[in-house]
């Protein structure tokens, strides 16, 4: 196959805030703004960012659970917006979703077996025997015993419920699974079990993931590439190795610096980034990060920085760290402006 499995171009979603008196002046929530990325077959693309930055909205747009204000979603090169009923069904089979909350996303009145075979039964009639065989197969795939098919969700642990959510997503043999905070509600020991399951499934079945999370250690562990979002926009997109080894965008740097590390001998060098994420109803002009950014210059308060490709293949939206020129910037230049350096100057003065 050539071309990416999933391609997202300039995806934008504005939610109207109530109904304005004059149509032109309806305020909007800029949930997602001009987001573009692609996902290759068998790849895990992670999306990270703080609460409200638009991660789940991207997921809903990908699943066509909400209509975009602008931009396109292409599966194997086909724009899903143009699809008619049958074709829509066909691609829905290829893309499935796993949700954060294993409690509320499962119908409490259905048995485990019914829950996980339901997606298939939306497409074809199954005999009792077929259904049981399918349920047993799916349960085994997610590391559960087939006897569990008769249990209700309330009779299962949190980890088992999340396995059910994954089994249901697997029922239609998708090429892509969108996992929105799929391990965030789980304890670390259960989280490890689920992350292992996702890694196994990818290896055995070549499934691609869009893995949405606010937890950097999980993202670093499971991802191939990662997109960092801030207030509706992607501010940096890079391979996991590159991003965590050397973050370029000041927000990426702040995020990584803020994540607690389970090592009591480590000394935290930089002070945490100040301030809070501003409202997406009235985002700051220019670069949305400028009110919190120690590197901000005048230009940041006026112009939205474009995503600029760097020599190592990543893209970064920052006037200072990734100035727009014809020649790709070298991330090596970052050293001079590093947040730690700047903060140490600020602390000393």
């Amino acid at each position: 196959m050539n071309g990416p499995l999933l391609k997202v171009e300039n995806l934008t979603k504005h939610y109207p805030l109530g109904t304005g008196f004059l149509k032109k002046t309806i305020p909007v929530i800029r949930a997602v703004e001009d987001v573009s990325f692609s996902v290759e077959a068998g790849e895990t693309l992670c999306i990270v960012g703080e609460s409200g930055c638009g991660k789940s909205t991207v997921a809903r747009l990908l699943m066509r659970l909400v209509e975009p204000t602008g931009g396109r979603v292409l599966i194997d090169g086909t724009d899903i917006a143009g699809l008619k009923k049958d074709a829509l069904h066909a691609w829905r089979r290829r893309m499935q979703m796993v949700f954060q909350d294993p409690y509320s996303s499962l119908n409490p009145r259905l048995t485990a077996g019914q829950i996980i075979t339901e997606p298939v039964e939306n497409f074809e009639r199954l005999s009792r025997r077929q259904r049981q065989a399918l349920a047993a197969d799916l349960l085994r795939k997610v590391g559960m015993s087939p006897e569990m098919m008769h249990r209700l969700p309330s009779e299962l642990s949190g980890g088992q419920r999340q396995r059910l959510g994954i089994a249901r997503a697997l029922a239609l043999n998708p090429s892509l699974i969108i996992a929105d905070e799929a391990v965030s509600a789980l304890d670390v020991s259960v989280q490890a079990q689920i992350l292992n399951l996702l890694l196994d499934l990818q290896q055995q079945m070549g499934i691609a993931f869009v893995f949405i999370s606010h937890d950097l250690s999980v993202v670093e562990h499971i991802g191939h590439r990662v997109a960092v979002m801030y207030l509706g926009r992607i501010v940096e997109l890079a391979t996991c190795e590159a991003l965590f080894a050397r973050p370029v965008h000041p927000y990426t740097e702040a995020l990584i610096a803020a994540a607690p590390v389970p090592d009591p001998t480590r000394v935290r060098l930089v002070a945490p980034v100040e301030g809070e994420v501003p409202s997406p109803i009235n985002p700051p002009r220019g670069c949305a990060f400028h009110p919190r950014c120690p590197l901000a210059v005048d230009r940041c308060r006026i112009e939205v920085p474009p995503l600029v490709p760097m020599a190592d293949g990543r893209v970064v939206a920052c006037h200072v760290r990734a100035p727009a020129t014809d020649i790709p910037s070298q991330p090596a230049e970052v050293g001079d402006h590093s947040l730690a350096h700047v903060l140490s100057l600020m602390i000393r003065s």
Partner: protein
Amino acid sequence: MLMQKSAGNDVLLDVRDLETHFVGDESTTRALGGISFQVKKGETLGVVGESGCGKSVTALSILRLLPKMNARTVGGEVRFHGRDLLELSDREMRQIRGDQIAMIFQEPMTSLNPVYTVGRQIAEAVQIHTKASRSVAMAKAQEMLRLVRIADPERRVNNYPHEMSGGMRQRAMIAMALACSPELLIADEPTTALDVTIQAQILRLIADLKERTGTAVMFITHDLGVVAETCQRVIVMYAGSIVEQANVIDLFARPAHPYTQGLMRSVPDQRRGRQRRLPEIPGIVPSLREPIVGCSFAPRCPFAIDICREKTPILRDVGSSHAAACWRAEEVMGA
């Protein structure tokens, strides 16, 4: 020995054999199976463990804030300044709560009242425990908001809780808790609901305030990263019991209980390689409704031997200020 000796001078809170049950129509949940630990003056003691292990019940039992309907603290002592808090009248207990011992919760709205301004609530906390006049208390409230680094405190004292962001509400709750300079602050997952950059700010704030006031902190969290960053000593809980207790450096360097070890290994850590399968703790936590025979971790434990399934291991010393409840702790430390 950490456990049974009488409290020394540096001990602020001395919890002994604390046992709390929840009684239901059909069964009893043994949420705390008789735990003992101490909080020393000025220290930050971490309490870690996965959901349901009894962290919050420990905090609520100490403060006697459990629902009266179904919760029973059936045994033990909570010694604070020579008095057993479990023996105090409700009135005496109210006097201690918020004055000498304060608590902050994961969800700030459990302690902030939505119908009063934040300033008024902090001022009231001040007035309950000092004889300050209304205007002095309001001035103090404003000062507290500044102390927890809420920008523009002159304006923010007049805010209602819903007019603040989650991070600001958490700061306001900390301001309220610290308004009476408590000797002990019990913080139950105070940053779990917050974004990571805001969490970093709040952790820094708690550390700064602690340094300034000398308040001891009992810091409850499920996050080993947060523990590593904030605590000096740590208690690890599993199924309603303390399974390990150590200073934070020793705990991370040489965990002595298989559960602690398993927990640490299941955290993704790039020093051990990306996209590798993580070491799992197989199985699930036991139900606290049925009595547990032997070690509660035995069904999931890679070290389990016959004795583990028959006799309950008690917390015992395995190093200087390092204790574990495991028959094979020495071997675990070497593994």
